[in-house]
């Protein structure tokens, strides 16, 4: 299993999910994530799993909801407009405290938008994709290897905390191929699912999976208990990577594909003597506030690089409590900034600081 293979990001997600024990996939085709479904369609029948192309995205997420209630790993994947349709189901999953994996290979919006890459579902993913007070775990891979690694992690933490997890990729990462070492087979969900609705055998009281709670006192209690769990996750589960931050005076904050592009720009800027580094959030919820707050003590300014209109910039400014200026370098609509564009932005910031 330790051999490197070439895979598309979308295929790596699918294979990693299977290796982590997933046997139930429900989807509906949409560019640029169709390879996830295609891979599942090929592989699931051979390993006794379920691949089902539902009649719609809404049907697919509700099938996930059904399998999740039985304590088994379940997954759906889509791209931005399709994810919007799934939001009702995601909210129900959260309201029932059920684990599930939702993959969003983002494309440009709003509406049907385009089919080229984007990160414009950052708000949707990190603010709780659906109605009501809730969060989902959000992972932002930046390589095909991370797409494989974070899929298993997302499934495991979804089960551990009994909440949906979203893998938030984009069209570039989904379509590109890179060498990947696939993870060892595992059982992301463990064996202990006392909440699962799998039949009582007349030996225990019924498990009931339901998000309806008409008594306000109880519903309030449930919400508060859920947020206590979220607080624990915010303390223990943020993931991030730091790059050349030791002496950095400018800190780029970027995730996913734009972090890869920023890395090129940083290498060039360093050659020109500009002290710039990067903090790359790997989890977007929980957001890695602590390293960013620490960086705010050291750097002169931040540069947020995203392919949306600056959605993460809000979280960054909150994390650093607006103590340092935050600039934004962005393209949207399926356009991606080049390393040169990011470099120009870095240079402008560096000149402004002299």
């Amino acid at each position, binding site marked *: 299993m330790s051999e490197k293979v070439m895979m598309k990001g979308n295929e790596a997600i699918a294979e990693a999910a299977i290796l982590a024990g997933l046997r139930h996939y429900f989807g509906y085709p949409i560019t640029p994530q169709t390879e996830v479904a295609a891979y599942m369609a090929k592989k699931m029948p051979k390993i006794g799993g379920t691949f089902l192309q539902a009649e719609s995205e809404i049907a697919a997420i509700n099938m996930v909801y059904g399998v999740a209630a039985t304590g088994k790993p379940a997954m759906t994947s889509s791209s931005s407009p399709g994810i919007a349709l799934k939001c009702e189901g995601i909210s129900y999953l959260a309201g029932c405290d059920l684990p599930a994996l939702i993959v969003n290979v983002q494309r440009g919006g709003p509406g049907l938008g385009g089919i080229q890459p984007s990160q414009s579902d950052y708000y949707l993913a990190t603010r709780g994709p659906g109605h009501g007070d809730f969060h989902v775990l959000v992972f932002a891979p930046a390589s095909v290897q991370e797409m494989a690694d974070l899929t298993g992690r997302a499934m495991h933490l979804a089960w551990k905390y009994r909440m949906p997890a979203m893998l938030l990729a984009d069209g570039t990462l989904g379509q590109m191929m*890179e*060498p990947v070492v696939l993870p060892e087979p595992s059982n992301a969900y463990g064996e202990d699912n006392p909440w699962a609705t799998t039949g009582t055998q007349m030996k225990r009281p019924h498990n009931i999976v339901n998000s309806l709670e008409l008594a306000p006192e109880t519903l309030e209690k449930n919400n508060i208990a859920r947020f206590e769990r979220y607080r624990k996750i915010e303390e223990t589960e943020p993931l991030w990577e730091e790059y050349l931050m030791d002496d950095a005076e400018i800190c780029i904050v970027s995730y996913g*594909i734009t972090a890869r592009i920023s890395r090129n720009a940083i290498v060039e800027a360093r050659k020109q003597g500009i002290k710039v580094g990067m903090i790359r959030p790997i989890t977007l919820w929980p957001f890695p506030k602590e390293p960013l707050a620490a960086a705010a003590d050291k750097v002169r300014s931040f540069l947020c690089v995203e392919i949306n209109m600056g959605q993460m910039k809000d979280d960054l400014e909150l994390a650093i409590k607006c103590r340092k200026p935050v600039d934004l370098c962005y393209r949207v609509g399926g356009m991606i900034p080049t390393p040169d564009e990011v470099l120009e932005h870095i240079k402008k910031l560096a000149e402004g600081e002299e």
Partner: protein
Amino acid sequence: MAESSVIIAGFGGQGLLFAGKVLAYGGLLEERQVSWLPSYGPEMRGGTANCNVILSDDPIGSPIVTHPSVLIVMNAPSLDKYESTVIPGGKIFVDSTLINRKVEREDVDVFYIPATQMASDMNAAGLANMILLGAVLRETACIKDETLPDALHHVIPARKADLFDVNMKAVQAGRDYKE
């Protein structure tokens, strides 16, 4: 070895992605860092398409090639689009059956190969991509000669395994071609 950043561009259906995959697999087999990025969407069904490949000894940042060291073009719009992006000293490989004009840049090496005509002459229509790749391998050695057969075996799907020999022949024809 120096980093190779390659753009292969032309019409959908010319085997651009396939040629890129051969390079990428070659890089993988030589244990280098590799990325392969296709254009996707309606252009894959006949419009202009392209594929970006990077082979490097260092971790690869952006998989999007903005300044290629190697450009392979299989239609005129692609030459128009990418000619100016090639780094000085870079190499441009032109399918001269399909592109009539000459490259205007003087700070790059240019190779004109009538690949589509050659493929047709050797009864291997559709393998102009591999003929061009042969010329690229001769001029850049971005993957080693001995890596190529193994890379091809990885990329040719099992149900088309019988096409291995003709692919190798096309690469050799490109390698041997002299203007």
